[in-house]
């Protein structure tokens, strides 16, 4: 459901499992058919490419049967409620349901409605736990243990589920988190969650061991959050010149899809600092771990991640 509710031990457990899968999938002699005979349903009611495909590949790598339902092809367009759609999916024999939805809290709502384990693949501006976990996985591969490390998340925080998942996860592993961006998208109230808030780009970059950029989500904002994309780029966009403010070894992450020339300039996105494609690759192993552990848990103890 969310990284807010996971303990650091649980996060470690998922990451360990992900590391194991990453190793196993890169070695052809290893079998990873742990979910053979299981039916995984991807219920993606909001557009998604990366996350949906990553979950599909992850499930297929575990030899599960995968069925993907998108918003457009589902009965929701015919007026069926989410509850009924989920009850139907359950009746059709799903063992795990991966949900992406534009309404915050909807995976939790579903988990109260049906008995099949639900995996949150992003719910509105609430959380995107699998993304948070793969970001943390990638960070650790690149900068090691996160205890005491300074991580800056830059951009549209207000509407970002990725930022929320990351801030909980990172804090639990001992990192110091700074949220940065324009004041209308990074309200001071975030400080109550135990993070720093900065509206000064330079200040937020100089100390950081890693900078996580977020996409400006035009689709969620009303027009008044900032004047224009070009103004945003001018004030908060990351480019080669500004990247010099960063520590020499600091890395850049981005959950995608990137808007080249808006939050990051093209050259920088393709540079060595950027680990954007590593994130995508790690996304598969992390999601394999989530599917695997959820399937195991559904036979044993707690139900949802």
């Amino acid at each position: 459901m969310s990284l807010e509710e996971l303990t650091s031990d649980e996060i470690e457990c998922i990451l360990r499992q992900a590391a194991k899968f990453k190793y196993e999938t890169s070695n052809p002699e290893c079998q990873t058919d742990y979910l053979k005979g299981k039916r995984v349903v991807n219920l993606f009611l909001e557009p998604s490419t990366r996350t949906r495909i990553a979950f599909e590949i992850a499930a297929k790598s575990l030899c599960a049967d995968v069925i993907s339902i998108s918003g457009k092809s589902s009965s929701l367009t015919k007026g069926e409620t989410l509850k009924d759609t989920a009850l139907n999916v359950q009746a059709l024999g799903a063992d795990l349901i991966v949900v992406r939805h534009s309404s915050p809290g909807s995976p939790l709502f579903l988990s109260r409605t049906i008995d099949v384990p639900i995996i949150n693949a992003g719910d509105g501006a609430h959380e995107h736990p699998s993304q948070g976990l793969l970001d943390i996985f990638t960070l650790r591969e690149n900068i090691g243990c996160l205890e005491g490390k300074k991580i800056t998340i830059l951009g549209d925080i207000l509407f970002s589920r990725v930022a929320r998942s990351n801030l909980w996860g990172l804090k639990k592993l001992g990192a110091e988190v700074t949220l940065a961006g324009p004041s209308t998208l990074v309200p001071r109230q975030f400080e109550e969650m135990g993070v720093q808030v900065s509206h000064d780009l330079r200040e937020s970059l100089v100390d950081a061991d890693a900078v996580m950029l977020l996409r400006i989500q035009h689709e969620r904002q009303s027009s008044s959050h900032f004047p224009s994309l070009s103004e945003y780029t001018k004030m908060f966009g990351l480019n080669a010149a500004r990247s010099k403010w960063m520590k020499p070894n600091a890395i850049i992450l981005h959950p995608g899809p990137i808007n080249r020339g808006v939050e990051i300039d093209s050259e920088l996105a393709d540079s060595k600092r950027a680990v954007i494609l590593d994130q995508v690759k790690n996304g598969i192993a992390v999601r394999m771990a989530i599917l695997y552990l959820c399937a195991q848990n559904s036979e044993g103890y707690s139900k949802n991640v």
Partner: protein
Amino acid sequence: MSNYCLKDARVIDPSQNLDKTLDLTVANGVITFGSAGDSMESIDCRGKIIMPGMIDIRGHLHEPENLSSASNAAASGGYTTILIMSNIGAPADNAGIVHLMREKASKDSTIQILQCGCLTKASQGKVLAPLGSLKEAGVVAVSDCPSSPQNTEIFARGLEYASMFELPVIEFPRDLAISTRGVAHDGPFSLKMGIGGYPRMAEELFVQRAITVCKNLCTRIHLTSISSAGSVELIREAKSKGIMVTADTTAHHLALTDERLMGYNTNSKTMPPLREESDRLAILEGIKDETIDCISSAHEPCQKHEKEVEFDLAPAGAIGYETALSVVFEQLSQSVKDPFPLIAKTMSLNPSRILKVKSKIAEGKRANLFVFDPSVSWTYKVDEGKSAAQNSPYENMEMKGSVLMTFSNGEKVFSIS
């Protein structure tokens, strides 16, 4: 019609400074003090309170509720009069619908149902509703609740025009431009949960607007469902300057905060949204110093399936007739030594003055009153309630004090089984 002698009850009626222990008899629907005759049911009311029937100043009638279930639910909560806000589906913006509604209410209801008309046509905020005709048809107030005319010219003209008929205007202070997407209080919880915020500012700006318009036009206004500490402060200041503003809050806002939304509980989604503890405490202070005149039930039924959806798609609203009194009693008990005079004022006397209806316990008058036992507590279960709707935030919560009996227009309309 049975006759009842309610013995040794504490009878409170702030309209005439009545507060003493006596025997109250209801014979043929009419009140006399002192016990009389043998041919009546005698009820020991030691330790019980009798107050004038409560008058609710904000309630809505939506499916699955109907007039009959609403009036039964209200009667069991101590109400003898309820004001029904105009419905979006069938807006009370023409005399015809008001006649229809009143005719139906007189048939289906055991208590007095008052109709609130629209201030503007279909509550769209664009053109004034025919306020004079509505008044003639029998509305006791007009309001666009839970919306508000966004155009200040329409709003001001509406106040001015309604004042000619001495028709109370009930304003639900809400700046839509900054609350359209808001489904929860704009605070730490909404931020954490990633849901759209409805800031205090949206209410306070329109409270200030209402005060300024009233001051300049020398009209009255009643502000409904105050939820923010800042609004309480603005109203307090306006009252001290003699501006003719009155206000209510809801029982939900006196008892609950936005913490209740954790877990995306759609039954705690109200309009306006539940706010923070500091707001709740300021509202409590406002009630105590009479800045806030009334406490409403804000009864707003929704169908079960309407609430069983994604949080942001669920309609706002919570039922409240059956729980308002216990909730208010519990909250006021914590800071007022004897809360009953204040309850009688905020839930009966003050609404009666604003809506210009009667609320009095006096010899020779028909009985509109209820008997309350403050010593019992009970667990609220929506399944066992009288409302046809189930969208309550108080499910399984402990309720303090209980209504034993309600009389409306001389008839016993409720007694606890």
